[in-house]
């Protein structure tokens, strides 16, 4: 094979690799007679998509952070806190839109705090966000008085409805929100100066500084943006549960990170893509969905997803070595 053709092939593999993984997972369950009838229905795909919304929104922001060479362990706590704030606002009589914006802004503020601490104190993101994980979770419980906040039903609760109204929407509004933001972020990462700067900071921060990139500003923006997405994710969590629950989404940050990594993100920074991350989210959702249909217990799902993470990253490394 000529080097040119090989380069093109590896390029194609880079692009389609995650798709192949997703198709394999879908094909696997589609071939099992007990579940294939239920699994392959549009209604099922629709519910998988809806179930993916919360992780997907968190993973959009996490992709930016991981590409920039950072990590955010506070994502799940941030989601819980934001859901509590949104519920609190609705409960206090705020208009739904105001509650939604307050929830998103809360997430953004937590992200901004993460970014400022990372850049000002020169601490590793792992430590800063580990601390923030506890702070945000505790703040949520405090505000909620250590219990769930009930809130009257509003249109916010329709965002995650499995059967959307009007019905021509086909998918829950939350799913469309994810799709729109995914497209916007993918374009921003690939073809804006800001996107290029995120990659440069993650690839080699010293070089980025040398080239006059305001690395601290890039990082603060990235964490703040990711925080906004966690806030939106928290609002979706509230929409799904119809209550503000500060104990929700414990450990979800690891699912979010896993989705980014399965989608080709490197914890060393400089690598990752929105498309890959979204496929990573879907792979995990379809696995959960299929396993549940099979009646397999939860621990089987956990083992399978754990194995998938290791396999996905191993394949990724092998691919890189070949280049």
């Amino acid at each position: 094979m000529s080097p040119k053709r090989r380069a093109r092939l590896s390029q194609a593999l880079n692009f389609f690799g995650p798709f192949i993984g997703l198709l394999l997972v879908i094909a696997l369950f589609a071939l099992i007679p007990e579940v294939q009838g239920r699994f392959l229905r549009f209604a099922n795909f629709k519910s998988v998509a809806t179930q993916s919304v919360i992780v997907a929104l968190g993973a959009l922001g996490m992709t930016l952070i991981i590409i920039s060479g950072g990590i955010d362990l506070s994502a799940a706590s941030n989601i819980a806190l934001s859901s509590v704030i949104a519920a609190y606002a609705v409960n206090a009589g705020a208009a739904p839109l105001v509650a939604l914006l307050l929830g998103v802004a809360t997430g953004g503020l937590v992200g901004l705090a993460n970014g400022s601490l990372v850049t000002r104190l020169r601490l590793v993101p792992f430590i800063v966000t580990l601390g923030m994980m506890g702070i945000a979770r505790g703040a949520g419980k405090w505000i909620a008085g250590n219990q769930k906040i009930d809130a009257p039903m509003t249109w916010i609760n329709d965002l995650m409805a499995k059967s959307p109204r009007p019905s021509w929407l086909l998918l829950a509004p939350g799913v469309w929100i994810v799709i729109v933001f995914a497209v916007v972020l993918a374009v921003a990462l690939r073809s804006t100066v800001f996107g290029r700067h995120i990659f440069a900071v993650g690839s080699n921060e010293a070089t980025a500084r040398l080239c006059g990139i305001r690395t601290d500003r890039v990082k603060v923006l990235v964490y703040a943006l990711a925080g906004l997405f966690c806030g939106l994710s928290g609002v979706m969590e509230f929409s799904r549960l119809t209550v503000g629950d500060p104990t929700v989404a414990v450990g979800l940050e690891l699912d979010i990170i896993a989705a980014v990594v399965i989608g080709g993100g490197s914890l060393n920074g400089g690598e990752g893509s929105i498309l890959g991350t979204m496929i990573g989210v879907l792979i995990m959702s379809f696995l959960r969905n299929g396993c549940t249909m099979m009646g397999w217990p939860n621990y089987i799902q956990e083992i399978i997803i754990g194995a998938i993470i290791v396999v996905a990253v191993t394949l990724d490394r092998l691919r890189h070595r070949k280049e």
Partner: protein
Amino acid sequence: MTDGPGAPPVLRMAGVSKSFGATRALDDVSFELRRGEVHALIGENGAGKSTMMKVLSGAVVPDAGRMEIDGRPYVPSGPLDGLRSGVAMIYQELTLAPHMTVEENVCLGREVHAGGWLDRESMRRKVRETLELVRHPELPLDVPIGRLSVGAKQVVEIARALLNKSRILVMDEPTSSLALEDSQRLFEIVRGLKDQGVSVIYISHFLEEVQRVADRFTVLRDGRSVGAGTMAGTRLEAIIQLMVGRELTELIPRVEHAVGEPVLAVDGLKGRRMAAPVSLSVAKGEILGIAGLIGSGRTETLRALFGLDEVEGGTIVVSGAALRGRAPWTRIRRGLGLLSEDRQGEGLALNLSIADNLTLSDLAPYRRLGLLRPALQRRGAADWIGRLQIKARGPAQKVGDLSGGNQQKVALARLLHQKASVFLLDEPTRGIDVVSKSQIYEWIGLLAREGKAVLFVSSYLPELLGVSDTIAVFHRGARVESRPAAAWDAASLMAAATVGRAPRAEPPSPRSAA
């Protein structure tokens, strides 16, 4: 105790070939290493030296050819096997564990123990003996490696190789990150190794250095061994000619240029890592060479100038206006550009493309309606690839795949691309091949001709003397002396750099920049 020509060589490589895809990295290479000799392996980057050493260490399996150690066939299954057969590599990038102590590093993998319990006493004794052999008994055993200088780290690496009873030592560019003094000491150690019966394969771009330390040499070019001989009685010009395969009329091309009015004036600049405030000024079209040992404040001054280190005091005036901001981006906006001494760690993002690396400091021209247009970016980069004769498959190729010389040209092209008017070049020719060096000298000259100001930091005295208009010497954090380049010679530069003052070689005459 070099054996006579009749004795069997310690190492013999014959007909060694290795291809990577379509590239023939080694083509029928032969090589002989005698006991107790220092053998220089010379060649441009990409000539096959590193592949040859990888074959020797066992990291790469050759397609064809034989290797013998002490007359017995040597077929290493991997680097560990090579090490057991007595072949040790001292790499350019040091391979020590920074948090562990000198003793722990020297003994790493060779710990003396009884049933798993470390025998500290005998280890310490052995390490002390070994440090004695490399003439550095003063090195503290309990200090973490990370706190030692690069020179001391190298000594520890060599000690580790000796403790492993290695008989063949491969030193790849051992002085490239050493200060002058440390280099001198290294030469003594290498000479000491000969007395121990250890053979050294010495790879270096510094030909004068090779001439001083090596007994014999082998030249590689395009994967072939094109010449070998004894160092004594061979002229450097002859070796260079073997390396490049053609007559090098002039290694340092002289580009005519005229010095204009001052453009950069630094007064009492004090950076966080600088020992003392520094003042200097550079004019348009002037190449100011900066000499000094590592740690003398040269690099630190450039970094403070560029805003990479915090500035604690002093003023910087560019084209008549004082610099205000602190961060590098404010300096770039005022026309400064810095080429880092650490090409792989800081200068370039190795896993990004050439196009990205080249244009990163100024992406504005490739933006349309807020969106970056990669096609335009690649076209812009391709232009510079052509102008600097960078050998690459195309602008989308990863910078990490290029040879050192071509990488450095990308780093220089970035400054040209961002239209810098004051060039701060920190060791721009470190670790790169002769031809790339010569091209970079020419570019520096061309920059001066276009009226740019150039600060040129280098540890390599011949290039400082050949390229600069003026040379300033740094010693212990201070600028001790500036003279026109013509009023310096290697000896006076060395003296000023090492003791802080220079004997007046000749009355300084204002040099017409011709």
